[in-house]
């Protein structure tokens, strides 16, 4: 039997595709590796798009519809490029009880976008998280990967303004 799958050409010379390819190889190009591979794509490129989904589908020998189905089913995967900065507001129960709803309102007012969207200038993405497990330090916000515990609305406003290029004052 022929060694398979016959290798699918990388979509471009971008080195990040090699990382994706490596993950697929580690899992023997099995269909069950789909979610792991999508994680690698998102980690490398920041989001999933038509090019990457097509590449993954043909490499794992899966119908594109199935890959698209999985990519859109899970909240963690994003089909839109993220902004320069990301602000994740934890909306878990602990944070909610401690006023995460108001924090989100402040952020939405400041950025003029809703949770799940990115500002028009591409500077800030606003994300609502289910629960990041920092419940004992509620309310928690994650600014570019750094968890900030017991956040006040003022501090959030300041950070967003800094990112958006306004005066923090």
């Amino acid at each position, binding site marked *: 039997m022929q060694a398979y799958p016959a290798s699918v050409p990388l979509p471009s010379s971008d080195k990040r595709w090699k990382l994706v390819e490596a993950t697929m190889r580690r899992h023997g190009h*099995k*269909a*069950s*590796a*789909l*979610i*792991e591979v*999508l*994680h690698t794509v998102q980690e490398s490129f920041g989001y999933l798009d038509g090019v990457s989904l097509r590449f993954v589908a043909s490499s794992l020998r899966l119908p594109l519809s199935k890959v698209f*189905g*999985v990519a859109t*089913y*899970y*909240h*963690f*995967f994003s089909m839109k490029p993220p902004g320069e900065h990301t602000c994740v507001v934890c*909306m*878990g*129960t*602990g944070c*909610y*009880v*401690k006023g995460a709803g108001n924090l989100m309102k402040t952020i939405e007012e400041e950025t003029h976008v809703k949770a799940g969207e990115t500002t028009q200038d591409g500077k800030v993405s606003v994300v609502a*998280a*289910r*629960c*990041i*497990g*920092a*419940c*004992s*330090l*509620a309310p*928690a916000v994650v600014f570019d990967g*750094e*968890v*900030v*515990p017991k956040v006040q609305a003022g501090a959030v406003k300041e950070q967003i303004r800094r990112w958006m290029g306004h005066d923090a004052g």
Partner: protein
Amino acid sequence: MTLDELEEIAENEKEEQKKIKHRLNVSVAAGCLSLHSDQVLKGLQNIVQERGLEGTCKVKGVGCMGLCAEGPLLRSEPQHTYYRKVPANRPEVLNAIVDNLDGQPIPEFALSPDIPFFAEQKKIVLEHCGEIDPERIEDYIGVDGYQALLHCVADRSRDDVVQEIIKSGLRGRGGGGYPTGLKWSMVAKAPGEQKYVICNADEGDPGAFMDRSVLESDPHRVLEGMAIAAYAVGADKGYIYCRAEYPLAVKRLKIAIRQAEKMGLLGKRIGESDFNFELEVRLGAGAFVCGEETALIASVEGKRGVPRPRPPFPAYSGLNHCATLLNNVETFANIAPILRKGGDWYASIGTEKSKGTKVFALVGDVNNTGLIEVPMGIKLRDLVFKLGGGIPGDRKFKAVQTGGPSGGCIPEQFLDMNVDYESLMAAGSIMGSGGMIIMDDSACMVDVAKFFMDFTRDESCGKCIPCRVGTTQLYGLLERISEGQGRMEDLDTLERLGVMVKRTALCGLGQTAPNPVSSTIKYFREEYLQHINDKTCAQGKCACSKSPASTIEK
């Protein structure tokens, strides 16, 4: 590695530990890390090095100590003194801590180990959290880690191991409370060559972080529990399905697996027997329903995490249609101690039907937010007021929410209830995975019910109609009430619809989704009535309170 070799490493490690007179353990679990405990760790290490104290004082990063509200935490040994809120940016404080290794602790930052938060706990799952370095396998071996596994493999029959777990009375800690031993024996007896063990680390309940802390603080304990389970049921392949939202837990798990493989404690020919067990981490991708076992298995297979009807149960037909044992992190974390000390010992703790201890996350309007482990059957009042330290400010206790979106709100009149599976169920809630969200009198129960229904409505996978449509309709009714447009018959509709969804939904998510609504209507009916009749929210949380009632009147 054989048992003798393991014991030798353990002995050496203990000898090494004994040589060091003082130890400063700094918590580097996610909570304290977000308060910059890594800088505290580095600062102290530098001071110790500058003073040339490396031989007598060891500074190390350890897991969660529980009292997150007071982080960053550190513990000075051998006095067992805790230091709280250690400021990383004040070198004089760090210096003072090193100055006072022998003497009196600094009063401003000291915390006695005798306060109820620490003294009233009974630690089995968390026994080494905050003691050992989670990224160093020798630390775990030094506290007799992996000995239970190698003992089992060398001296005990598979059935003997299952019997020990049955004897312990351990029940699933993920929420359902199914007897663990029974599940193990089902998988052990199931036909088929290939069997799997899966650890559910998809801690989706908002307001709960027990599993995250265990994985970040003592990952080897979970691996050992899984390996023992694999031996008992005859599996050779395992997966840990962990949330992608817990990057630190994933990182430490992967380190732990690599270290255990290197030492021959995972992988091929464990303990130089013919028992093989390979373990892999699989990342979740943010779907709450994947906590349900059949959905989780679908997700491990790389598919959309959608549940399927049971039977067949995963114990007979799970991953790749093979018999699969699925337990939660905390359940696996209980296994090694049970085998080390015996099922009878474990069964002597707790109540008649709920054995052992349970880890809870105390969250919300309570002074000592954090992680605790207590014997089953403890009074709810003790949890909130003794260990939890009561409600902050002059506020009054209103309710405690357990079991996440599948649970209910327990009001004040139940404070003297024992916390175990049956009592919580009788009060209209569930044990769940262990999140306890305490709410003071500023919480509006209609708003809380709406919050949870918004959650389940969004997380419903859409496969079955009762859940997909039912949760949306329930949410719509709650929204109407919260906006001051509710009608009296809405209460009836909520209750009737709730019962319908409960009885007809396909999986646990739908079957329990109405619980937050039904329990709040049951215990806080007058609040609903106030929203409907007076069109006001006394707590000012709902939309109806923000505009005069007359403008909303239709």
